């Protein structure tokens, strides 16, 4: 028997694919041929070594997201073609007479409906485009749920994840601002600022960032916002920084210096 056939036979044995007679043949060979026994052990070592790689269980969000998607899909099937987004939302509103237990579940359905609506409106487009819309919305759903996680590193992952989205809904932007202003972990807030900066073309985002300045007690955040305002050349934020200096929220002289510098620069825009 060739090498490859022998080893494949050993693999079949290890995976319990062999019939009784063949199993016995392999076991006999193992006992009588040291060369075969050595080969057997080599293959076994590799095969069983692969067990070291473990896969985690899926998150509960996956199941709930799937169910949300299934519902909207069934909706589309049941009610036939719906040609307007408003129509789809209306039909969903009809179905949901009960009050949703958690806000996020409601968000999921709204966003799914939004995705479905957008998909229907773009009926003529090719499959890939539809798919990326659906994927984008699924990602947004994930971001929203992860932002409420009790573990700071999961919230951080959620924020990092927003940077992969090619379209960010208002719902996600609002959630990011809530995180920016109230998250208990400073590093999460810092990264959130960064993520929001990427979205600063949106005037609502700029406004939100300016409003965030006086809400920040942490010196690191104040400095980060100062840099952000200069990057955005947002003149009206100078007022907020002046207020910060007045309130004496800033303790370190280096921070004071930074904020004063910032106000000066902003006023010369």
């Amino acid at each position: 028997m060739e090498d490859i056939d022998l080893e494949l036979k050993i693999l079949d044995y290890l995976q319990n694919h062999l019939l009784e007679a063949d199993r016995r043949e392999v076991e006999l060979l193992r006992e009588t041929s040291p060369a075969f026994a050595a080969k057997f052990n080599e293959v076994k070592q590799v095969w069983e070594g692969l067990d070291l790689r473990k896969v985690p269980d899926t998150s509960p969000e996956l199941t709930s997201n799937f169910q949300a998607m299934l519902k909207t899909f069934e909706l589309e099937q049941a009610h036939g073609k719906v040609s307007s987004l408003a129509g789809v939302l209306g039909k969903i509103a009809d179905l949901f007479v009960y009050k949703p237990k958690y806000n996020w579940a409601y968000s999921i359905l709204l966003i799914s409906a939004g995705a479905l609506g957008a998909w229907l409106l773009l009926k003529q487009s090719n499959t890939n485009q539809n798919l990326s819309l659906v994927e984008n919305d699924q990602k947004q759903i994930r971001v929203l749920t992860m932002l409420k996680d009790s573990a700071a590193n999961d919230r951080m992952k959620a924020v990092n994840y927003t940077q992969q989205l090619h379209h960010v809904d208002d719902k996600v932007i609002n959630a990011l601002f809530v995180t920016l202003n109230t998250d208990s972990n400073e590093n999460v807030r810092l990264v959130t600022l960064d993520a929001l900066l990427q979205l600063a073309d949106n005037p609502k985002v700029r406004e939100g960032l300016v409003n965030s300045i006086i809400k920040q007690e942490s010196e690191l955040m104040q400095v980060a916002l100062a840099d952000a305002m200069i990057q955005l050349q947002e003149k009206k934020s100078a007022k907020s920084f002046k207020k910060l200096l007045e309130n004496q929220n800033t303790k370190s002289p280096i921070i004071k210096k930074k904020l004063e510098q910032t106000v000066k620069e902003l006023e010369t825009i």
Partner: protein
Amino acid sequence: MSLLFERYRRPLFSYLFHQTGQRVESEDLVQTVFYLMLKNRRTFSADGAFRAWMYQIARNALINSAKKGSRTVYQAEFPDHGTQLIEHNLEQDYEQNEAKIQLDQAIARLPADQREVLILSKYQELPYKEIAEVLKTTEGNVKVKVFRAIQELKKIYKNL
């Protein structure tokens, strides 16, 4: 459909996770695959054929995703997934972590087709015939790839 989801959610996730090492991306791809299966659901009934069809869709979704430049490209260091693994392996020594890192690197170095066949055979437990169907090739071809993958991995243990 919900039944199918319950039945295939874990194996599908497992396949994607072994390929990408990314938990979040893998979950999103699971969603995508199920969405695609929903869309084209009129096509299949028999169980064996279904599974092969599902993995075909999964492969394509993976390839498309990689093309778009998201991070579902295979990572050389297949990650441990944090708390889940910690729960399973409380007894695990630091040394065993090192062995795992070596294994992950060896698998990362395998040519993509060998790695794929290995994953489908070892972790998804697909028979060679079905793997051939997924990859649209011959059973003989699949067997050769498995053999070659095993030869490569043998080297890890020779080096110890």
